[in-house]
Structure formats: C-alpha cells, structure tokens
C-alpha cells in the first residue's frame, strides 16, 4: 500500500529524483522529503483533512513514472481534437511529463518560453531558480512537500515583460497507464510586468485504473499583469486529484482562477494566493456539480500582505446522492494591510438527505481598516421558486433544471473568453442533464468516434 511503500519508493529512486537538478534544489528536495516523512500522508485526524478521506486510496499500490515515456506517442491518434471556435496553444503532459512533440522547450517570437520544466532547469537556470520552490511552504503541507521531493517535470511557461499572450495556453494532462498510477506534476509559470496570460488546464484519463494525481503549480505574477487560469475537472470515479496553486501576485496585478468541477472520485483543490503589492487582486471562482460518491474539497487561502488589495471568492456547488463537498476559505490580513477588501461566498445546494456539505470561513484580520464579508449557505432548491415555475406549466424536472442552471451560471457567466464561456456553459448544461461524457472534458471537441472507454457511467443530476 502506498501509505507504507512511499518511503521505499523514494529511497529506491532517490538518485533519479535528484538527477540533473542544481545543488540547492537537490537540498530542497531532500528537505522536502524529510518534512513529508515527519507526519506522512495526511489523515482525518488533521483539522484540514477532517472531511476528506484519502485512507482508502492510500491503501492501494501505485506505480510512479520516473522517466518520460520512451516509445513514440502518436498523440493525434489517441487524442483527436479540433477547436473551431477557440484558438489555443496546446501543451500536453503525459503521465506527469511534458510531452515533446517538436522540442522540449520552445521560445516564441515574442520571447515567451513554453515547455518542459526539467529542460528549463538546464536552459534557463536563472529564471527557474529565481522562482522554483519560492512560493511553496513545504512545512505547511505534506502533499506539497511530497510533490517537491518527487518533482521531476511539468510545464514551464515564461512570459517576459510587456507581452500579452493572445492565445490561451491549454495544458492537457493525460494519464495513460495500464496500472494504478501516481503522478506528481510540477509546473512553474512566471509572468513579468505589464503582461497577460490565459491558462486552461484540463485532465484526461485514457485508462480506467486507479489514479492519484498530486500536482503543484507555482505562479509568479510581476507588476501590472494579469493571469487568467481555468481548470476543468471531469474525471472518472477511480481518480483522486489533489491540486495546489501557489500564486505570488505583485502590485496592480490580478490572478483570476476558475475551477469547474464536473465529475471525479476525490478532488481537492488548494489555492494559496499571496497579494504582495498594493492593488493586487485575486478573483477566485469555483463551480462543482457532484453526485454518487464523489467528493470535492476546495481549500482557499488568501494572504493580504500589503495595503489596498482586493480578494473575491465565489464558490458554488450542487451535491446529489451521497456526494460530499468541503469549502474552507481562509483570509489573512496582515497588520499593515490597511484598506483591504476581502469577500467570500460559498453556496451549496443539497439534492438529497445523504448529500453533505461543510463550509467554513476562517478570517484572521490584524489590520483595522478592512472591508470583509463572508457568507455561506447550505440548502435545497427553493421550494417557493419550484412551485412558481410549476404553476406556469413547467414540469418538476424542467423546473429543477432551470433553477440548477441558474444557480450554476452565476459562476460560468463571469468567464471572460466568450468561446470558453459558451463551451463551459454547454458542458454544465450537459452535466445537469446527465449527458456529459469524459470525452467532453477538454475545452476541445473530441472526435465523434471517441472510444468506448471514454464514456463514463453517467446519470442526470436530477
């Protein structure tokens, strides 16, 4: 079982895990493993993990991928996509490794660098070393420590000063393993001053074994820049997806993060944002639609370190059957962070008696000139609204659909890219109707003739 084996796995592959990294990164990785080893995998007795249980998953054995796949992967064959309405630059991550189709690292005309983090350590050591590990606290989270210890590759994106990347960059994370797979991608996104970047992150499984993904993305945003991050999660019931985004935001810059969670086994998303310069802004939104035994957990931490910053959180979810949802929104306002605005909303609709939601705001405010609000609700569909709709001839099923769609669309309607909004809107509608397949999970239109294994056991949310 992974819970016990992880130490042996580490020891057996330690050389590989450290191979090629500069000395101080090697040291960091070793320290990270020591930090992990202190308490091991998280468990329910920890306050932060009280409602999310990994123990069953960790009882299984998993294989890790310590090398990139050597055989040629004809990605167009296993993953046929076309994108008529949205023009993206696509990057593929295959079992955690950057999949090189043309080269390991490309530098575009505008100076943008996209490719393998592992390669970037060699080709752009200055940029990588200035940021790698700098926004991650390995002592605060066992999973982040473990990711740091095991990190070998992931996506590296660098946007220099004064560059607006017009096309969204789409990262498709493909898991293609005949065994239970444990992967720990590590991404680094560095955006300079006066620049803009849109990222669309999708996960895709090609096999139906157990999977455990523990990914970590560090994002540095210089001054007066904008990063728009979309995450699509539509995984099968056998997958456990633990993701962390650690964002460091400088003055007058914005991080916008949107998570759309449509299916999955266990999903836990951590977003940690440090607002580090005046007028920095964090705009975080999430929508989760879960049923059966699915479990989704959003852990948000916003650190207002300087004055005049703004943070906004809007998380909404519809929970059916025996599914569960957890929301923990922590806001920390430092003593000097005057004129802070921090808002938080979490709304949950439970469709059955067995569905459950835990919502917990955590406010730690040490400044006195602060505007802060938080609200959380857990409830059913409004019976008065249901009767109102039905009294006009709309059947119960359609009335529920209308109300659920309206509830969900508050999040979807804020998406800035029209083509993406339309596509996500369509996916939410399909999800509510029970017509969503995992083939729909990427932003792209998969080929009509998607193989059968891409079709999940799906049922309507109502």
């Amino acid at each position, binding site marked *: 079982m992974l819970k016990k084996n992880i130490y042996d796995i580490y020891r057996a592959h330690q050389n590989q895990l450290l191979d090629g990294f500069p000395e101080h990164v090697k040291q960091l990785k070793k320290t990270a493993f020591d930090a992990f080893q202190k308490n091991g995998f998280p468990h329910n007795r920890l306050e932060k993990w009280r409602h999310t249980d990994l123990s069953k998953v960790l009882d299984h054995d998993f294989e890790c991928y310590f090398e990139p796949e050597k055989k040629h992967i004809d990605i167009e064959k296993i993953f046929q996509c076309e994108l008529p309405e949205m023009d993206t630059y696509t990057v593929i991550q295959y079992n955690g490794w950057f999949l090189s189709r043309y080269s390991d690292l490309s530098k575009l005309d505008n100076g943008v660098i996209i490719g393998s983090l592992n390669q970037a350590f060699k080709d752009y050591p200055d940029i990588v070393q200035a940021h790698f590990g700098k926004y991650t606290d390995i002592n605060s989270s066992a999973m982040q420590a473990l990711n740091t210890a095991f990190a070998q590759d992931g996506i590296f994106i660098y946007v220099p000063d004064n560059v607006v990347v017009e096309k969204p960059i789409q990262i498709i994370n493909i898991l293609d393993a005949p065994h239970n797979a444990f992967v720990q991608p590590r991404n680094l996104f560095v955006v300079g001053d006066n620049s803009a970047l849109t990222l669309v992150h999708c996960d895709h499984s090609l096999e139906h074994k157990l999977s455990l993904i523990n990914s970590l993305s560090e994002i540095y945003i210089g001054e007066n820049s904008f990063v728009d991050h979309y995450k699509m999660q539509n995984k099968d019931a056998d997958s456990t997806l633990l993701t962390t985004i650690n964002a460091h935001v400088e003055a007058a810059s914005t991080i916008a993060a949107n998570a759309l969670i449509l299916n999955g086994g266990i999903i836990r998303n951590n977003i940690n944002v440090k607002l580090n310069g005046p007028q920095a802004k964090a705009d975080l939104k999430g929508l989760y639609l879960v049923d059966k035994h699915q479990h989704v957990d959003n852990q948000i931490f916003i650190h207002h370190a300087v004055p005049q910053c703004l943070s906004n959180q809007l998380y909404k979810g519809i929970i059916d059957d025996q599914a569960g949802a957890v929301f923990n929104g922590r806001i920390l306002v430092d003593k000097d962070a005057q004129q802070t605005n921090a808002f938080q909303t979490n709304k949950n609709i439970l469709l059955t008696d067995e569905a459950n939601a835990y919502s917990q705001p955590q406010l730690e405010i040490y400044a006195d000139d602060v505007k802060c609000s938080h609200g959380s609700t857990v409830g059913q569909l*409004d*019976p*008065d*609204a249901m*009767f*109102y*709709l*039905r*009294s*006009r*001839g*709309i*059947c*119960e099923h*359609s*009335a529920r659909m*209308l*109300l659920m*769609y*309206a*509830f969900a*669309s*508050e999040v979807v309607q804020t998406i800035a890219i029209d083509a993406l909004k339309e596509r996500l809107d369509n996916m939410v509608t399909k999800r509510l109707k029970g017509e969503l397949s995992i083939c729909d999970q990427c932003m792209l239109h998969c080929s009509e003739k998607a193989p059968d294994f891409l079709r999940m056991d799906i049922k309507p949310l109502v």
Partner: protein
Amino acid sequence: MLTIKNLEVSIDDKVILKKFNLEVKPGEVHAIMGPNGSGKSTLANVIAGREGYEVLQGDISYKGKSILEDTPEERAREGIFLGFQYPVEIPGVSITNFLKTAVNEVRKHKGLEPMPAAEFLTLLKEKKKIVEMHATLASRSVNQGFSGGEKKKNEIFQMAVLQPELAILDETDSGLDIDALRIVANGINSLKNKDNATVVITHYQRLLDYIVPDFVHVLFDGRIVKTGGKELALELEEKGYDWIKEEVEM
C-alpha cells in the same frame, strides 16, 4: 368549470378551510374578500396544487374532473393560472427563458411543436403592451429586484402570454399605484371572454370598479359566510367586517 364542494384543508395540523363551497362557470367573474388570515391565499394555493396542504375532506373539480391528484404543472396545462400574492424572485432565470419554457411545455402537452422563436418574440412584444411593461424588464431575472408594482404587472403579463381558462388572482391589486391599478385592471379585462373565468381575491372595492364581479363572496374563518352582487363589496368597504362577524356569531 370549477366546483369546490365541502372542502376542508389543513396545514401543519391547523384547519384553515372548512366546509368550503364554490361554483365558477365560464364567463363569470368572482371576487373573494375577507379579513387577513381568513384563508384566501390558502384557497388559491390549494386550487393551484401547492404542496404542504392536506385536503381532509371534499373535492375540487375542474372541467368536470377532480384535480386533487394532479400536479401543479398538470393543472396549469389544463388552463389554471395563479397570480401570486407574493411573486417569487428567481435569480438567474430570465423572464424570457422562463416563459419560453412554460409556453413550450404547455404546447408539448397539447401535442404541438415548440413555438418558433420569431413568433414567440412577437407574442411577448404584443403582451408587454397590454400591461405597459417596460421593454427591458423581460430580459431580467424573474421578479429579481422588481418593485412591488412591477411584480404584479409581471403576473398579469404572464397570464396574458399563457392565456388561461381559469385565472385566480391573489391580491393582484395590492401595492399598485392608481395608474398601475388601472393598467392592470384593463389588462385583466382585455383577456376576458365568454369562455374563461376569473377569481379575484382583493381587499379593496376600488379594483371592482374596474373589474365588475358577478359575485362577491366573503370568506371568514375558512368559510364563505356571505355571497352577494357587487354592491356587497361597497357595503364591506363602508362598514368593515364587524357586522359580518356579528352575523356569523349569531
């Protein structure tokens, strides 16, 4: 068209309507008046099929058939419309989308194809005029942030679009200014014909100056204690309900 016989209704074990009888024929206008809490909205809700009420006795039949087992949507599709005393705000659902769904579900029930988009838009435009509804209101979420008067106008607008055979209007006149009252009343009148019927629940005789009732019923403590012509409304306006109470107690 609507026959209510010996109806007894309770909510949370509290009996609200007792031995209630009412007969409404096509083409008629009935007014129901009565003090606060006498059971007027309860009656309207029970006819429309709202959950939570227990029918202990008696029957409601519509077009010759009992409707007690029917869902609210089945009753609506058969032509029953309830104008709400307190219209519900539904954030995120636009009036246009809501009415399109309603119209097409009713059509589907009748075996008709969905209404073509252009025809539907023309219909909305035409009906908006009836209640002089502001053009932008229909693109907003149902009742969200509407003023009291706008909500009531919106009820009549929906009625105009759905063209019911039996309309039960629960205090559609309260909260309206003098002009809006006239507009709403004219709207109701213009939808009137010899085949449909209207039941207006109101506290004020003023509405009945515009919508002339064939019958005025006084509901008191869950029962109709007096029925008369439109002059009964005038009498109530003048004397209040005390004399009725006394009559009942005697």
